[in-house]
């Protein structure tokens, strides 16, 4: 009975969303809005998680007034506040550049959402990834689109015409470009082993053998460090070091403009952890013997596995923020170029050797 209903539902979904009709892809594009809404909720959840976790680490209580004991609605309240705050435009800012920066940052975060598969579900023994669209170069696309966010941050700092913001923008560029190369080289090492730039293929490749985090431990470590640096999290958040730079590139922003940029940052963090899960931690793959057990709601198990990994990675990233001190900007560049880049090269050699024998 349930199976039949699922069958009908899937049939309808396929006619609407498949490439059968000319309007199918367009509808899927608009469905990106749903993914976007989900992402907003996830980003809000990440902010809430961060505040709660931080307060736990620092032996505080954290948000506990709005929305029950755990302050679950605190972020809704914050969003409403951001929406209704005055949007102050300082006199000396470089108008167009300053106004375009949050739009660029937010837009780049939105563009990333569409290519990421958020888990998968099993139906009739086939696994369907939950992605708005799948295409051959999704990893390359994700890297390219996320790099637009860097330009947004630099525009924010430069357009603000504020000394703190400009210093933050300089530091930001120095940090981002230092780690972008190492990040790109570790991602390419995964591609070399799999021979495909499609994220879904990469996840499936890990299903048949083992997670890439285990076969390329060095690459995983380099990727993790570079990703945290790329997301601008502590210990690599010199661009918004509160003690010296007020609020970094965001000093001259207020109200919803700040909100957009802030949200874009958190979406980048959420999506970054998502990419880490997908390309190094096995994505939604579950061991084969569980599939044979035929437990109820098996079809949704991959999504659950994926979400669990995702939250764990996010919690790890948050934990690092509250456990490590911030390092200096010159140390940041020397770690990026003198440690991570050579390690990424070593990993590249290992990946080529692995790729020649993959899959075993």
């Amino acid at each position: 009975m349930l199976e039949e209903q699922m069958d009908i539902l899937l049939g309808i979904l396929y006619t609407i969303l498949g490439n059968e009709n000319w309007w199918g892809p367009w509808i899927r594009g608009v469905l990106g809005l749903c993914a976007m809404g989900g992402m907003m909720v996830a980003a809000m959840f990440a902010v809430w998680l961060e505040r709660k976790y931080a307060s736990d680490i620092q032996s505080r209580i954290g948000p506990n007034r709005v929305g029950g004991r755990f302050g679950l609605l605190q972020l809704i309240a914050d969003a409403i506040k951001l929406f209704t705050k005055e949007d102050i435009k300082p006199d000396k800012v470089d108008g167009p550049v300053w106004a375009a920066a949050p739009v660029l940052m937010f837009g780049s975060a939105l563009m990333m959402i569409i290519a990421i598969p958020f888990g998968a579900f099993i139906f009739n023994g086939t696994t369907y990834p939950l992605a708005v669209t799948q295409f051959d170069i999704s990893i390359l696309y994700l890297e390219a689109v996320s790099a637009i966010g860097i330009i947004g941050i630099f525009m924010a700092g430069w357009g603000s015409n504020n000394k703190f913001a400009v210093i933050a923008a300089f530091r930001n560029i120095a940090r981002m470009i230092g780690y972008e190369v190492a990040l790109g080289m570790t991602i390419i090492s995964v591609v070399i082993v799999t021979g495909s730039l499609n994220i879904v293929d990469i996840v499936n490749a890990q299903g048949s053998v083992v997670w890439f985090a285990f076969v390329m431990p060095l690459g995983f470590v380099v990727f993790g460090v570079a990703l945290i640096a790329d997301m601008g999290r502590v210990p690599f958040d010199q661009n918004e070091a509160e003690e010296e730079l007020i609020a970094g590139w965001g000093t001259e922003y207020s109200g919803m403009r700040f909100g957009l940029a802030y949200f874009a940052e958190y979406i980048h963090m959420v999506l970054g952890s998502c990419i880490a899960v997908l390309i190094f931690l096995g994505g939604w793959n579950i061991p084969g013997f569980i599939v044979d057990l035929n437990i109820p709601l098996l079809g949704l198990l991959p999504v659950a596995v994926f979400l669990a990994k995702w939250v764990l990675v996010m919690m790890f990233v948050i934990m690092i923020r509250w456990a490590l001190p911030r390092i200096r900007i010159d140390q940041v560049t020397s770690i990026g170029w003198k440690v991570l880049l050579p390690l990424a090269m070593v990993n590249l050699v290992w990946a080529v050797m692995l790729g020649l024998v993959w899959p075993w």
Partner: protein
Amino acid sequence: MTDAILDYIPIAVMLILALVIPFVIMFIVKQITPRNPARFKNTTYEGGKDPIGEAQVRFNISYYLLAIVFVLFDVEVLFLYPWAVCYKSSVVLEAIPGFTMVAVVAMTIFLIIALVIGDIYAWKKGAFTWTR
């Protein structure tokens, strides 16, 4: 239209949405927020004093060097993308048997010359050092 093109249509739709949505948000915000510009409120934030000069100064040369090295290495990484996809792809191997070893050797030579020697050169020249 081929299937490959169809997969990119959602991206085009999302591109338009991503361009429109922030503007829509800002438009709504403009309607509902108060607007009270004042002389001191609109000054640049700088610890209470009037800022001296412009903030848009010239770059320190260290940043410039880092940017140049970054462009060099990022282009090299970009060359790796098409290579990684085709060096063991069955389609290519059917057309050119034994392509894999040739590709690996060629890429190794390229990487040693461009990446390793380039990195050592930039390192020795002090591009990654801030104070010298």
